């Protein structure tokens, strides 16, 4: 059941309807049943995997919680008889114990993800045939990360483990975000899932608007641009030079429309249910640096890696020892960098791997890392520049240049994702500067990529609308909430979205007049 299928629309509508028909205390059951219906139709062979993750998440969280409870009971009972040092020792003992439980749980959770997602890739490094092709359950990267984040939070004592197995299952499988996120935190999402939200027509309107806008971004913009991207990727041997730039631009449009659109659909449906998961994007293409970009793009994944990989790794005992050693032996400047840079590189290696099993993803992650580290090192230079040209650096054209530069850099390395082959991608990047075929492209090459002038016009219109919405959305209250306060306007806009998506969307069997050429029957 894809988001863009009629079956999904009917399913989502039914879920929202049933949610509000049930008594408040029972409403979360509707969500849980909906999750499993959704997942069943996505592929019933995927069900055992999500159930396994749920079971691991539930039992290990409960186990750690039992340790925490025993620890506080013990400390409570012996408050007066223990010295500070003894109390510390007790806490440290339980902490170590919890850590072992966490590690076992993580091995089971991440282990299943690793086996299913990476076995083929790892085998392919060593030999070229007999590569196993294991099934990859829908959304496994997302629900595994969300569940393991919860386990870490329980081990840290940040949240109390959920006692109800079914409530845990709901957290693992909440259907709108199962396919492409956002990756939510337990403390934020779980109470919202369990609470029976009262019906509020405002939520319904705001959610519908958001979902409709998501469908617009995905079906009218992303899927249309994707046609040209597919042509460019399939014929990458001949479509070099300027075409690579075209691919970078078009793929940026595709990934933006597809990903932010998908998230809008997910969050829109959640909003209709009165649930507000964490935002995943914050106008990412206006970022003026790579660092800023990663604070605005796929936010929940970035913060997951920061909180659960980068920081723990940076301040782990071995890293602290390394920090001391390197500062003593290599000097302050280099010494303090070594542990942080190691942690950064490792985090980005994992981030790349998370996106997919393949060298292109790893290289993509490491290139992001490289850009971040280089800009980190150039910081003093940048400060100098700022003090020399303070006026320029505060001007809008300069900001535009920075945003464009960031956009192009991110687009460039993102093209690894399309070409899927690292040496080939590097070669193609080279042709941007060696092959000047812009004349050919402008004189008609751009029309031979599967899109006609009418399609480009739709694309341009769609991008313009997205840009305007993004500009209007800068204010404190999201645009959609300001709009949803006006019911009649909302109905009008929804109607307009329906028409525009139905007519201009890319979906269904393409009407091909050639099919209708009457031959002999």
């Amino acid at each position, binding site marked *: 059941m894809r988001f863009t299928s*009629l079956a999904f629309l009917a399913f989502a509508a039914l879920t929202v309807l049933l949610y509000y028909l049930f008594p408040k205390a029972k409403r979360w059951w509707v969500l849980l049943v909906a999750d499993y219906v959704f997942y069943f139709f996505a592929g019933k062979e995927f069900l055992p995997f999500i159930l396994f993750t749920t079971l691991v998440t539930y039992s290990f969280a409960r186990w750690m919680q039992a340790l925490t409870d025993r620890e506080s009971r013990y400390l409570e009972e012996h408050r007066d008889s223990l010295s500070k040092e003894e109390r510390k020792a007790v806490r440290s003992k339980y902490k170590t114990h919890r850590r072992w439980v966490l590690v076992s749980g993580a091995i089971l959770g991440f282990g299943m993800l690793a086996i299913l997602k990476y076995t083929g890739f790892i085998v392919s490094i060593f030999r070229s045939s007999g590569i196993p092709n294991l099934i990859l359950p829908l959304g496994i990267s997302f629900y595994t990360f969300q569940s393991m984040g919860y386990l870490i939070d329980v081990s840290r004592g940040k949240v109390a483990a959920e006692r109800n197995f079914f409530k845990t299952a709901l957290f693992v499988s909440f259907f709108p975000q199962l396919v492409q996120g956002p990756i939510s935190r337990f403390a934020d999402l779980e109470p919202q899932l369990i609470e029976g939200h009262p019906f509020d027509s405002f939520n319904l309107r705001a959610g519908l608007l958001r979902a409709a806008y998501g469908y617009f971004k995905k079906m009218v913009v992303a899927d249309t641009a994707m046609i040209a991207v597919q042509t460019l990727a399939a014929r990458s041997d001949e479509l070099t030079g300027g075409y690579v730039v075209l691919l970078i631009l078009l793929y940026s449009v595709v990934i933006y429309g597809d990903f932010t659109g998908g998230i809008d659909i997910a969050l829109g449906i959640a909003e209709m249910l009165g649930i507000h998961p964490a935002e995943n994007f914050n106008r990412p293409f206006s970022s003026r640096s790579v660092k800023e970009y990663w604070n605005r793009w796929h936010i929940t994944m970035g913060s997951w890696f920061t909180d659960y990989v980068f920081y723990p790794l940076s301040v782990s005992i071995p890293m602290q020892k390394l920090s001391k050693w390197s500062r003593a032996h290599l000097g302050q400047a280099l010494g303090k960098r070594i542990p942080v840079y190691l942690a950064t590189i490792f985090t980005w290696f994992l981030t790349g791997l998370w996106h997919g099993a393949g060298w292109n993803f790893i290289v993509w992650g490491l290139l992001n890392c490289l850009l971040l580290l280089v800009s980190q090192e150039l910081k003093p230079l940048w400060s100098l520049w700022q003090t020399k040209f303070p006026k320029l650096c505060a001007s809008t054209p300069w900001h535009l240049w920075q945003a464009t530069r960031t956009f192009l850099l991110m687009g460039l390395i993102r093209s690894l994702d399309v070409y899927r082959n690292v040496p080939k991608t590097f070669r193609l990047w080279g042709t941007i500067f060696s092959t000047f075929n812009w004349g050919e492209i402008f004189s008609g090459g751009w029309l031979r990529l599967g899109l*006609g002038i*009418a*399609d480009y016009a739709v694309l341009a219109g769609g991008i313009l609308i997205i840009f305007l919405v993004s500009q209007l959305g800068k204010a404190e209250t999201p645009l959609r909430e300001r709009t949803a306060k006006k*019911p*009649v306007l909302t*109905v*009008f806009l929804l*109607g307009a979205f*329906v*028409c525009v998506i*139905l*007519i*201009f*969307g*890319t*979906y*269904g*069997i*393409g*009407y091909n*007049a050639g*099919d*209708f*050429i*009457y031959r*002999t*029957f």
Partner: protein
Amino acid sequence: MKQIQLKRWLAAAAILILLALLLCALNRLLLPKYRSGNTEGRLTADYYTDVKTRHQVLFLGDCEVYESFTPPTLWEEYGISSYIRGNAQQLVWQSYYLLEDTLRYETPEVVVFNVYALKYGTPQNEAYNRMTLDSMKFSPVKLSAIRASITEEESFASYLFPLLRFHSRWKELTQDDFTYLFDSSPVSHNGYLMKTGVEPMTSSRAGSPLTDYSLPVSSMEYLEKMRLLCLKNGIELILVKSPTNSWGYWWYDEWDAQINDYAAKNGLSYYNFIPEAEKIGLDFTTDTYDAGVHLNVSGAEKLTSYFGKILRENHGLEDLRFDSGLSAVWQEKVVRYQQEKEGLLK
């Protein structure tokens, strides 16, 4: 406060109604009109313009009916009022459901079914499905017809709301789409689609041998359903095979034997015109427009004369020319038919 609420509801309702109207209009605009070029796409729609006329005979089948029988000739020569519900590659279940659809309006005395399409046991082609089904009037029968016909890549919903299928035609709208937006005038002559070209048949090559000659069970099941439906409604079912037989569209003797058996078992008449071509007077150097695959108007008229006689003599169909009302209706049709023929032949 209440008044504001009411106003809001009214405004929202008005917007929704306008939206529905707009979508219906767009749906109509974007549906292919089949006026220039593939006029076969109009055949299903044409029937509904003639439901008020009494039809003694209903022809069902693929191009082998709508290119082989000319209802105006049948009227002129025999006073038999008929209609052809045939479409490009009309599959057996589509013939069956079009019969059910026809029964919603009238009950003919005789149904003539051309057996060629029995060779297909599964849904075949999206384009032909669309041409056959899209202009069927909405009814439970249409739903069954869609269900039986769609290929794997097609969606049921796109037949209920064809905009889902034809939405991208906004890029290729032509004058026709606007001219014929509300025009339902027929392109056919009671289902007969006139072709006047001549392209002689040059090859007498037979069809290549098959590994399995049995007609598909699924299509034979629909033939049986059709027979039972006719029986229930007191309609005589006649099976025919048009006289054309070219190698790409070969009618195998093995198939013919199966139809013969079926007809004999159920007491049906079956006329295979292939061996009768000479008796009919067909000359495949002048009576076909595409080297023997289909008859042209001259061939169709010859076949109609021949078959009309059979209908009169063997099946007792009455001469209705005494009915002045019906005669007047047919008079117009015959004139239109003659005019188009003369126009095309010029």
